[in-house]
């Protein structure tokens, strides 16, 4: 994305920050949901797009962030809580990254899926045996509008980072890795380190989203924080949007978030089966994502 494009997008985000002055109820809730998934899906695609590693660890990092707030929210000032959440997310992603990014293909997918469950069980074990209480109350004075603004700010920061990354040596290295990892190694790229660095960057954003969202629920237990459905929702949104460009995932987030809203409101009893059908359609009908489709149309090839 060019600097002009980035500036336009950031200006657009700044304009959207006015929404809470117009409505603080339903539309703000919907906007929070879209903003949340926009950050998560873009962060997911930032790592998984170029490297083609399909990660199901979103819920793990999101949960870590949320749980950090549950533990520290009432003790530390809010910016410090966010900082701690980001640091924990980074440390965990580095540990996990160095341990697993040598795995490839389906092994990595399975591992990341297990990661959320592993962390959930560890937290549960800790709460049962050490703190001897399950379920934590999050009474932090944060309004819905503030949650929304923080999410917009995160999204802006993520886009700026992504733009910078695309021009950096790291971004180029990742591109080569995505095309052919063996070649990348042979031309002297430290593939493991590049992948881990990107994984950590992406994970920090996921942890921050979890931290920002936690005050919305007042009460957290491991099952709420480490909900695997977040991983799948983010994955399908990013796939629908397309992972090859920075704003691609957004093209999947907005329609799907709106669709989920309509399905929940109109078909409360058939939600799960309809969402399942949507997932199948996305994978079969739009394998390159909406952004891929648009690119093909622009090139004049038959869609």
């Amino acid at each position, binding site marked *: 994305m060019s600097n002009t494009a980035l500036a336009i997008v950031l200006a657009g985000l700044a304009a959207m920050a006015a929404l809470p002055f117009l409505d603080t109820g339903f539309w703000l809730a919907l906007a929070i949901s879209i903003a949340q998934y926009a950050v998560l899906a873009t962060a997911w695609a930032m790592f998984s797009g170029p490297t083609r590693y399909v990660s199901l660890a979103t819920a793990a990092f999101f949960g870590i962030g949320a749980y950090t707030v549950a533990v520290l929210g009432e003790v530390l000032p809010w910016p410090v809580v966010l900082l701690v959440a980001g640091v924990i997310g980074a440390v965990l992603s580095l540990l996990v990254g160095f341990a697993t990014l040598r795995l490839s293909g389906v092994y990595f997918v399975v591992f990341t899926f297990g990661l959320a469950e592993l962390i959930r069980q560890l937290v549960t074990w800790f709460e049962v045996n050490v703190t001897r209480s*399950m379920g934590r*109350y999050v009474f932090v004075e944060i309004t819905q509008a503030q949650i929304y603004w923080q999410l917009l700010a995160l999204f802006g920061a993520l886009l700026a980072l992504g733009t910078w990354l695309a021009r950096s040596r790291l971004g180029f290295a990742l591109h080569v890795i995505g095309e052919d990892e063996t070649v990348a190694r042979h031309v002297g790229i430290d593939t493991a380190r590049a992948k881990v660095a990107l994984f950590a960057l992406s994970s920090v954003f996921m942890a921050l989203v979890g931290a920002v969202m936690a005050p919305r629920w007042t009460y957290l237990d491991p099952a709420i924080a480490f909900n695997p459905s977040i991983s799948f929702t983010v994955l399908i949104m990013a796939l629908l949007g397309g992972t090859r460009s920075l704003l691609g995932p957004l093209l999947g987030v907005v329609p799907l978030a709106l669709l989920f809203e309509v399905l929940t409101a109109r078909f409360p009893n058939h939600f799960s089966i309809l969402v399942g059908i949507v997932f199948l359609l996305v994978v079969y009908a739009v394998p390159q994502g909406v952004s891929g489709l648009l690119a093909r149309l622009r090139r004049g090839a038959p869609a």
Partner: protein
Amino acid sequence: MKKDITRRGLGLGASALVLAAPAVRAQTAAPTAVKIGYAVSKTGPNAGGTAVSITPNYQLWVRNVNATGGLRLGDRRAPIEVVEYDDRSSSEDAVRAIERLVNQDKVDLILAPWGTALNLAIGPVMNRAGYPQIAVNAVTDRAPDLGRRWPNSFWFLGTSAEYAAGLVELLSKQREAGLIGNNIAMVSVADGFGIDLVNAARPALQRAGFRASYDRTYPVGTQDMAPILAEAARSNPDAFIAFSYPPDTLAITEQARVSGFNPKMFYVGVGTAFPLFKERFGANAEGVMGIGGWQADSPRVQEYMRQHKELVGREPDRWGSSVCYASLEMLQQAIERVGRIDRPAIIRELQTGTFDTILGPMKLEGNVRREQWVVGQWQNGEFMAVAPAAKAGARPPVLPKPAWRST
């Protein structure tokens, strides 16, 4: 003209009565209807509890109110129109559903979901929007704090400390009577309610001079209870206590029966009060104690039971269900006393009024319902309330528990 509308409203009430069973979203613009919304867990881990203690009572109440023509607002009656959503047991979906009910559907009142987590999740939204929140199926030690923090919220099932204290008091009484000794075996599920209960029970037992010679926690979803029960039996306790969830409650009781482990007092946790427990164990349920209980001999409870069976096709549970129905009766009386949909006034009435319910007169103190039945015992096929003993209508517990019969 006005008369005409009222008649239309009555007609609607009658048709809503016909359609009430599957609680459909009646799409109508009748200005005299009262719109009541709820988002409950139709799917996900909370679906079981919701289907037992929440949904049947909401449906039954709406049916009964509409059968009389609706809620009495001043000199007319307004039938209830229901808007319902599935929160899929997710906190985020629950919050969004409430925002939708308040801002899009513009419902007049909102009924609460099942469980502590979801009630806490929607607490801030309900508070901001100024809707009364009758958190009927939530047990939290912070209930009194929450009532102060959100004056629009009402907490009906008390704190886990109350349940533990009531149980220990019952144990002490039995010991005074010379029926049991000091030796207790205790197991608990490693999840929210189980942990809270055992944390409250440990110091209470110690203060009362009991000795927990066996005290073990097991993970949620444990299938095989044989090793735990074998160890508990080896400590040869006078009383066995399990702070368990419904599946474990059934598994523990079944394993105790199979292995012939029959202490003088046998107490299991959530689920003992379910009709399923009686169906499953038949005569062997006799003498088993558990959480909850009700006054089964009260005519109004029996009438409630009959209506519940007729509408849902099965009996209600003997803990949360009747409280849920009673809370709705309170809401109805509060609305009718105020005479219009004036939410601040309804909240004030709920805070201060005394209400006539199937469970007798009910009054909240600091937005919390005090004095509930904490221990019940299956006696002659009914789950009778036995503690707190000081509460009017308590049955004396029957100890020692009869021997398991082979089936």
